């Protein structure tokens, strides 16, 4: 047993679960009150991640500014979604609202796709872009006269892997297709440097543990587990946000109104609750939580920030909300953690498991099926226990 690997998987599972939980609360609160699967919620998360990268990287703002700003922007987006798209449909069928939600999801994806510069991903790494009109020689070592290993075209952008001493910067470069990238050195004056995520978020480590991990090749092998700061940050933030939300729902007047609307909108309205305002507030709170999820994701993964990134986490977070029992905040946390664990441990251990169970399958890679596994969990729960793990039977939501 490789304990270092196990801890790494565990760490990923907790972070993944934290992100899902923050998205899932938005689904669960909205569904709890207006019985709508807000398909566009994944896109709110995507826009949260996009905005945070834009602020971090593009404007070099510190985290304490980025977080509230993103939350504010996404809350406004949530309010916009409700006011423009869903509120006019309060009286119509649930199917109409669901189709509208799908439509809003497409619209948001479409807009982001059109306005993001390269249609694929926003840079989160600190990058070097080749200047001028001519190719630049990349060297094997950071000194003049070292061996030339590659030539980079003008405008080519590569992530910086080593800062160097000022005269040269090290960038990651694939020498041959299919090989792992290595660090090659470019003259500092030949490139334009764009800063990515703050160093402290990207690379610092909270602690380090060593385990002996003997293998056939290396009987004295050790496996090292490094606990990254960004994962700890993810857990603490998610926990704090969930706790705050719990207090908001349980202890405040507006929270009470939210719970009343979830139970019975008509009665709540008769009791003097402004139902439309409560719904709008719910959208705003859920969207702000999704923004935090987006920020945490962009810090943790540092890549794959593009217009479709919201789809899978969105659907899985909805699955998490259903799994825990839709309408329950604790259920959303529980469901999200379970799916985070299912997904991460599948990725970490599925190949090992299948290959040892079915020896003939060793050439096959099973890890891409992790999301399929999450979807399967969701389907089984909806079919056999539609009220979720913490929900009660009888409250028929199917």
């Amino acid at each position: 047993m490789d304990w270092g690997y196990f801890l790494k998987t565990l760490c990923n599972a907790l972070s993944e679960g934290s992100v899902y939980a923050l998205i899932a609360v938005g689904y669960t609160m909205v569904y709890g009150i207006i019985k709508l699967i807000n398909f566009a919620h994944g896109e709110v998360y995507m826009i949260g991640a996009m905005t945070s990268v834009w602020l971090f990287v593009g404007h070099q703002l510190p985290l304490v500014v980025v977080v509230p700003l993103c939350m504010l922007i996404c809350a406004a987006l949530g309010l916009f979604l409700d006011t423009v798209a869903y509120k006019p449909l309060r009286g119509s069928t649930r199917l109409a609202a669901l189709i509208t939600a799908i439509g809003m999801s497409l619209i948001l994806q479409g807009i982001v796709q059109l306005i993001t510069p390269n249609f694929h991903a926003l840079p989160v790494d600190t990058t070097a872009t080749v200047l001028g009109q001519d190719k630049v020689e990349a060297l094997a070592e950071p000194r003049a006269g070292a061996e030339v290993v590659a030539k980079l075209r003008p405008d080519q952008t590569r992530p910086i892997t080593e800062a160097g001493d000022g005269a040269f910067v090290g960038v990651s470069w694939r020498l041959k297709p299919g090989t792992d990238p290595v660090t090659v050195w470019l003259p500092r004056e030949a490139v334009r440097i764009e800063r990515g995520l703050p160093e402290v978020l990207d690379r610092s480590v909270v602690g380090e543990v060593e385990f002996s991990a003997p293998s056939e090749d290396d009987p004295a092998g050790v496996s090292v587990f490094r606990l990254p700061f960004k994962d700890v940050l993810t857990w603490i933030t998610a926990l704090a946000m969930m706790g705050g939300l719990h207090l908001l729902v349980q202890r405040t007047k507006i929270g009470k109104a939210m719970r009343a609307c979830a139970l019975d909108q008509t009665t709540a309205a008769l009791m003097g609750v402004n139902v439309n305002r409560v719904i709008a507030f719910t959208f705003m709170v859920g969207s702000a939580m999704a923004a935090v999820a987006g920020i945490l994701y962009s810090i943790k993964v540092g890549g794959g920030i593009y217009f479709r990134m919201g789809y899978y986490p969105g659907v899985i977070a909805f699955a998490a909300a259903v799994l825990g029992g839709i309408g329950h905040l604790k259920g959303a946390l529980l469901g999200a953690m379970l799916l985070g664990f299912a997904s991460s441990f599948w990725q970490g251990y599925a190949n090992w498991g299948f290959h040892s169970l079915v020896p003939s399958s060793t050439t096959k890679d099973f890890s891409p099926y992790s999301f399929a596994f999450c979807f399967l969990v969701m389907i089984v729960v909806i079919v056999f226990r539609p009220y979720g793990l913490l929900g009660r039977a009888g409250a028929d939501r199917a």
Partner: protein
Amino acid sequence: MKLTTLLRSDWAWLALFALLFVLFGPLPPAMGLGSVVGDFGVQVLLTIMIYMIFGIGLNIVIGYTGLLDLGYASFMAMGAIVVAAGLVLTQQPPTDPLTVPLGDLRLTQEQRALEANSGAGPIVVQYRPDWGYDVVGGVPAAVAALQRAEESGEAEPTVQVMPYAGLVLPVGQKIAKGTHPFGSTGGFLVLLLIAGLVCAAFGVLRGIPTLRLTGDYYAIVTLGIAEIVYITIQNEGWLTGGAYGIKLDGETIPQLFGADPSVGQGKIWLFNFYYLVLAALVLAFVFCKRLEQSRLGRSWAAIKADEVAAMASGIDVKQAKLLAFLASGFLGGVGGGLYALKLTTVTHAQAEVFESIIVVCFLVFGGMGTIRGALLGAAMLQGLAEFLRLLADPYWVRETFHLAADSELSIPNEARMLIYGLMLVLLMRFRPQGLLPPRAGSDAPSDAEQAAWRAADSPLFKVGSETA
């Protein structure tokens, strides 16, 4: 007949579209196989017809039975994969040699020398319209035959060649494709039927766990299953080609009604394929229309309106739903199989959730619950999508709208998603029933009709089976 009555008639809409497809489709061989709308236009019309079949199929579940299915792309993709994989995996190497007029063969001096020394193997010939045949490899025997013919001065010498990938023959020339079980029209139709049946079976299988679900839970479960199918297609490369997909070429694409896709730039083949798809569309329409107007169709409508009342009227709701999934899956599989031939490259992209949503958009736009809505939705939106594809090309925009020579004006293709999204939102807000919604009411029966009904005798009419 009044115009409003015509507008409410599915048959009138079918006739209208069929007429348009014939008018703008490829002309028969006697008239040169061209088309008013050009080659690109014919491809667009083919896509529209195939998407109409998808629309008709999905309408059974969404429109008739009232269940929002977000996973129809699974059927579209599986049908395409069954056909593509069926064609590729069963392909046998060709065995029958082909006789080609030798006069069409051209060999360079070096080739002759090379061929004379090379070992045995099939002769490989390539046809070039301006040039004749170009021998790119072959057996000494063939070269010898060529030399012999040149020396003896035979009037019309021929040489036997083995058909081979890349072999292109002039109009009218047939290839004996060796043993390809699905390589003929009949074989392809069988394969298409298999694709339909596989998807029908998958529809039933997928339907079983969802029988108790309605509304958004049904939608999200079908979405989840579609994602599982998508991930599976992406990762099971042995069957689906994985990320690269399955490629069909002149060898694997079946002959249709005697025409080969690699003969004469495939024009006759395209003509035949075009009308095969049109026939499939008409058949799909009749298939669906007959179900709609039957006892089963009434059951679906009843389930959509009120499941409990439907049950209390003696309808086996589960069976009726499964039959809807079966019929819908069948049409998806057949449409997907046809789409495989149109696309020639079948990838996992066919199974993406956006593909499902596109077809949902057709129905929402045209009006959920009517075939005419599905037809109109597919025609308008798929037409729009193809138009957007053109608008994404600055060159086309410049030429078409006579813009300045340095104009780079274009609309990115990505705008399609945005436009579909806007359309869904606006329709739900202002016309949730779509453009051509179902209409139940019609003119009241005349007194004469009523009298005739009263006077007629029906064995099915009885009140009370025993006397008190």
